[in-house]
């Protein structure tokens, strides 16, 4: 188990009753001291998973660093909707440079803090999947390899959303994007491609790698705080549904994130120095259809010209993850 969940919650929503907890047991989001790092008024879509994930993550990082935090942000949805000229939602020192260099910019900031004798000031880099797994990959790997004192947070909504939903190396098989249309013999994104950046991060042997979703707030906050308790290169990969890009209802963000975990399609785990040290178990395993059907980007797999064999392949992928990471709770755990 990666953390000890609070044992009671409201049925149906799994909301953890913060008013029923002592103040020091409450989540950062429920705290009166919450830094509100990304304030309201930003221009994200209704139900944006990335806005939620950023709020959760950066507030937790601010708590962990006593408010001594600087953030570097890649180009992308988060950067665009949080800083619509002439406004900014950020209440932390924040810089946006380019699409592919957030990790390198963060390295520079960390070096500056070191040389200025300010080790208490911590550095976070953040970007979407496009800016992390594709164009930012070189700088990310360089930052990992040097073990620079940066926490890199990737908000993964599985495509280049801000430019109109184009495929990235994080786009799952069979998903429709504007560059992987649901036509032809293999509709949607093809199988056999894609990049598992958390595992690549682990291969760099960095101190801490973790995945999380916006459905499990406490798990996410725990992982941010754990990462912030360490120094060196750390990577957090957060699954953030995108209602617009995925063609999902704007109130389904959290349930979709939960389903990604409960089907086994998105393994939630943490690793230290290249080895998995904890896994968030699936509570009640769900068939992948329950996750795929509410999203229009998978609509071509169902209905009149259904592709049950593709759905079966996706299910097989989920089963592999479950096996590989030990995602199902057994008698012992």
């Amino acid at each position, binding site marked *: 188990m990666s953390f000890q969940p609070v044992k009671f919650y409201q049925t149906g929503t799994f909301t953890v009753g913060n008013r029923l907890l002592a103040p020091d047991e409450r989540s950062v989001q429920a705290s009166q001291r919450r830094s509100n790092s990304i304030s309201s008024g930003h221009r994200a879509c209704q139900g944006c998973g990335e806005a939620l994930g950023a709020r959760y993550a950066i507030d937790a990082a601010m708590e962990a660093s006593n408010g001594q935090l600087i953030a570097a942000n890649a180009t992308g949805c988060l950067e665009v909707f949080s800083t619509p000229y002439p406004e900014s939602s950020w209440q932390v020192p924040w810089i946006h440079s380019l699409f592919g260099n957030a990790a390198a910019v963060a390295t*520079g900031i960390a070096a500056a803090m070191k040389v200025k004798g300010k080790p208490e000031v911590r550095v976070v880099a953040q970007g979407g999947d496009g800016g992390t797994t594709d164009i930012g990959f070189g700088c990310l790997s360089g930052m990992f390899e040097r073990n620079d004192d940066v926490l890199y947070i990737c908000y993964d909504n599985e495509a280049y959303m801000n430019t109109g939903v184009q495929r990235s190396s994080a786009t799952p098989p069979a998903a429709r994007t504007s560059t992987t249309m649901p036509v032809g013999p293999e509709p949607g994104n093809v199988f056999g491609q894609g990049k598992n950046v958390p595992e690549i991060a682990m291969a760099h042997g960095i101190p801490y790698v973790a995945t999380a979703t916006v459905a499990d707030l406490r798990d996410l906050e725990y992982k941010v705080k754990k990462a912030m308790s360490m120094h060196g290169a750390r990577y957090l990969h957060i699954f953030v549904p995108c209602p617009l890009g995925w063609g999902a209802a704007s109130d389904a963000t959290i349930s979709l994130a939960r389903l990604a975990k409960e089907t086994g399609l998105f393994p939630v785990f943490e690793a230290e120095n290249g080895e998995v040290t904890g896994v968030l178990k699936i509570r009640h395993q769900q068939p992948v259809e329950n996750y795929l059907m509410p999203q229009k980007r998978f609509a071509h797999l169902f209905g009149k010209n259904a592709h049950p064999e593709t759905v079966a392949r996706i299910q097989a992928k989920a089963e592999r993850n479950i096996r590989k990471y030990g995602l199902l709770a057994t008698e012992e755990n």
Partner: protein
Amino acid sequence: MLKQIEGSKAVAQGVALCRPEVICAYPISPQTHIVEALGKMVKGGELTPCEFINVESEFAAMSVAIGASAAGARSYTATASQGLLFMAEAVYNASGLGLPIVMTVANRAIGAPINIWNDHSDALSQRDSGWLQLFAETNQEALDLHIQAFRLAEEISMPVMVCMDGFILTHAFERVDVPEQAQVDAYLPPFVPRQSLDPAEPMSIGAMVGPEAFMEVRYLAHAKQMQALERIPQLSAEFKTIFGRDSGGLVRTYCTEDADTIIIAMGSILGTIKDTVDEMRAEGHKIGVLGITSYRPFPLTQVRDALIHAKRFLVLEKSLAVGMGGILATDVRMAVTGTGLRGFTAIAGLGGRPIYKSSLHKLFRQAEKEELPPNTFLDLDWNVVNKQLEREKQMRRSGPIAENVLHDLGIVSAKFG
């Protein structure tokens, strides 16, 4: 202190005296000796406090410098040619954000074909990026310009590129006077940023700017370079009072007062040009030299003032605007618009082709007699060129141009078709 050292080492020592706080670099010929020397100084504790970061690409190098500079640290990097192009997006980003990064560009040709030797195409490819660009004539000036660059950059909050000819200057051993730390400290105060990432005063840097404000923001970058046109001579004068020598400035004239013909150039070639001009003066030719030190901002007024009393000018440049002609020449012509001055362009030294004094003697005499076409390619082997053009006329699969030329020159023995 006077030393006989390699140009790269001189620059490294000059940069170190400027108390840089973050140095990041990726190796590329011919700048590597500079960052190697700096890296050694940092690792050995000679240069402290300073963080030296071995980055994984030039794009990362400029990006790390951006982060460090935005966080208030005095930042430095060095590159050339392909590396400068690889970081091009970040180069524009740095100037757009107004970050006073100083970068050495060890001028080198850009491929294809790959070529590691000197010309000015790399720096000039970034001439519109917003970076200030200063060209050193000697290794002494290369060292001195870095000190002036940090001061200028931080004052106006814009990045500065110090350009020095790759190999010709970087790898040449010559006499330099390496200043004392106290002199540099007197000239260059600690970095006080106009903006910085600071938890005590959070701000957002790098927001999107739309049509409603972009023109104003870009104009302000231009305005800063216009301010630099005034400050550069003043900073050079101040440099002289502390360090005791002429260095930097916008332009430098040599024997131009009564000259009928003026040769214009940038960088180390000015040395060979001056020797040629001295010999021609001894024979009674009224010829002079205008060296341009500040290429960006381009000193339109000073160039015009230097040329206005001459009859003609010749721009000798190590750069080529393919499909157009000279690059420096175009800027010079802008300066003399409306004066009726007759101008000629000579493209020379591309890819490290040596420029011989004997060739300059011929060229300058032709310029005096105005017996030059608008564009001259100095010492071009027309036989080889025409042979290739003919080859292309005769057959479709004429082969790669570079390899054909090398074959014709007898440099490679590869056989074709």
